């Protein structure tokens, strides 16, 4: 960060807080209310990315089925708060249940894959994600659990006492619609997630995860209970996924298996890799960019019309093309991520010295 941007921490903190509080209003006033919804999704994805970062970034376990936990949290919410089963439990009761159930499934996925690493683990987790999605797609018979591909509709919005997150509310002369209310709810959960992720990284468990990621044999020899520590990583990551899933279900009011396909898992993984694996500010930035960018590219049609008078290429086709291109460019120019952690930066910077290093490894003459 340039020097002139560096503010004393209390001032920076205050500015950040004010920005975060005013953000939906500023966005709504300038870009329109549809962008407030985008903000909500940004926060959901920050939560998801930080959750997956525990598994992939901290513990080094490549999980390509992360969206399954998101789905589990979302479906549990739908089952317990919609006309589907006629249950209408309050959200504060369902969210912890969803997080817990997802955490349990995390262990369920972790237990049989304890001995797998790298590509093998990736394939199994990918399969797990697909299995959950296919279950959701087909569990409408013999007993209608998930309503199949039609999904579950009319999910209860979040209600905080008399305040129901639906329709219009007025507060100090401001009109607050549901996306505004969800923004503040999601913001609270996101901030809590960030704090937990930071505390975890610097904890004893965080160090055990780092050791496990670097060398499993050596970690065990240092006294790390590799089995428990791995399961804990899966469970913790899944818990955040489940939590985000519950929030997503209440926010959307409708869920179907389509929302939980492989692409979602890959997208969340991209956020981590692009932002800077294992580094919280990087992961947050990755999530923000990869949520905002595809939305911003929706304007491509308007731009074409403004510049050329008519739409040449369907913006929907162009959107993903440019999105992919942006990913490739970012990986070429920032291979360690947009905001890499101190360690990853050094690691990539050290790359230049590798040849020299190998010489030293071979001969080790400079005693």
């Amino acid at each position: 960060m340039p020097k002139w941007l560096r503010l004393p921490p209390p001032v920076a903190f205050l500015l950040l807080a004010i920005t975060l509080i005013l953000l939906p209003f500023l966005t709504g006033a300038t870009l329109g209310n549809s962008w407030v919804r985008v903000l909500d999704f940004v926060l959901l994805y920050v939560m998801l990315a930080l959750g997956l970062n525990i598994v992939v970034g901290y513990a080094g376990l490549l999980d390509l089925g992360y969206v399954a936990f998101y789905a589990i949290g979302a479906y549990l919410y739908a089952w317990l708060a919609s006309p589907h089963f006629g249950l209408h439990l309050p959200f504060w009761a369902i969210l912890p249940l969803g997080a817990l159930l997802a955490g349990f499934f995390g262990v369920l996925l972790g237990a049989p894959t304890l001995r797998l690493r790298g590509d093998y683990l990736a394939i199994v987790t990918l399969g797990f994600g697909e299995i959950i999605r296919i279950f959701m797609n087909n569990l409408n018979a013999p007993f209608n659990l998930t309503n199949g591909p039609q999904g579950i509709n009319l999910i209860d919005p979040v209600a905080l006492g008399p305040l129901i997150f639906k329709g219009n509310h007025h507060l100090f002369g401001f009109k607050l619609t549901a996306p505004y209310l969800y923004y503040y709810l999601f913001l609270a959960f996101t901030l809590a997630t960030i704090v937990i992720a930071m505390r975890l990284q610097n904890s004893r468990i965080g160090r055990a995860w780092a050791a496990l990621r670097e060398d499993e044999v050596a970690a065990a020899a240092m006294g790390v209970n590799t089995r428990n520590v791995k399961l804990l990583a899966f469970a913790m990551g899944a818990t955040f996924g489940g939590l985000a899933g519950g929030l997503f279900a209440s926010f959307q009011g409708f869920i179907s298996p389509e929302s939980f396909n492989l692409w979602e898992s890959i997208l969340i993984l991209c956020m981590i890799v692009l932002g800077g694996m294992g580094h919280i500010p990087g992961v947050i930035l990755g999530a923000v960019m990869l949520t905002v960018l595809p939305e911003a590219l929706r304007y491509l049609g308007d731009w074409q019309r403004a510049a050329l008078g008519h739409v040449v290429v369907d913006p929907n086709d162009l959107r993903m093309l440019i999105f992919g291109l942006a990913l490739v460019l970012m990986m070429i120019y920032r291979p360690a991520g947009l905001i890499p952690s101190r360690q990853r930066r050094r690691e990539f910077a050290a790359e230049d010295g590798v040849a020299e290093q190998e010489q030293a490894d071979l001969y080790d003459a400079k005693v």
Partner: protein
Amino acid sequence: MSLLEVRGLKVSYGGIHAVRGIDFEVAEGELVCLIGANGAGKSSSLKGILGMVHASSTIHFDGARISGLPTHTIAGLGISLVPEGRGVFARLTVGENLDMGAFLRKDHPGIRADLDKVYSLFPRLAERRTQLAGTLSGGEQQMLAIGRALMSRPRLLLLDEPSMGLAPLMVRKIYETIASIAQEGATILLVEQNANLALKISQRAYVMESGMVTLSGASPDLIKDSQVRAAYLGE
């Protein structure tokens, strides 16, 4: 009674028997080596002691049976391993690697004191405290692996091929350090392919050949033994 007592250690991978029932022991304060050619089952024996591979045996450490226990529990009892190929945590700094060595300890003043000791034993590591372990040279990584193992204040130190892949000059330096650690009273079980080096530094030795101990005795005697000289010292 010996600190480490291994009886009938067998290690197999699938249908392949890497270690076929060997006995050995290490007494408190002793430096014992396990020598033999590549594939003789030396490293597998170490992994068997630590419960890292499927093994059947009766192993006692300080009188208590440790065979069948998980690796992290055995590590907690005071057996520390310097893994084959060093096994440093490449993307952690030198300092963080050493901290991991003290993972199971809670006596912070003691950890600090041991950290200073490791840094005085290996001044090179002190200089590179904040450098990533993966960017160190092979010899420095070996120093780090030994230092990390010492950070747990082990009662028994297991060294797996500390000379592997290092230049002769660095090998000598590492062996001088091992000797000085042993002189301070540490108990060490050393696995080494370089029989000459290992026999010179150790008090007793076991010679392994295709999963069996074929010869054992005091190292100074073995070094003169014509059979050993013929098989391992290239004479």
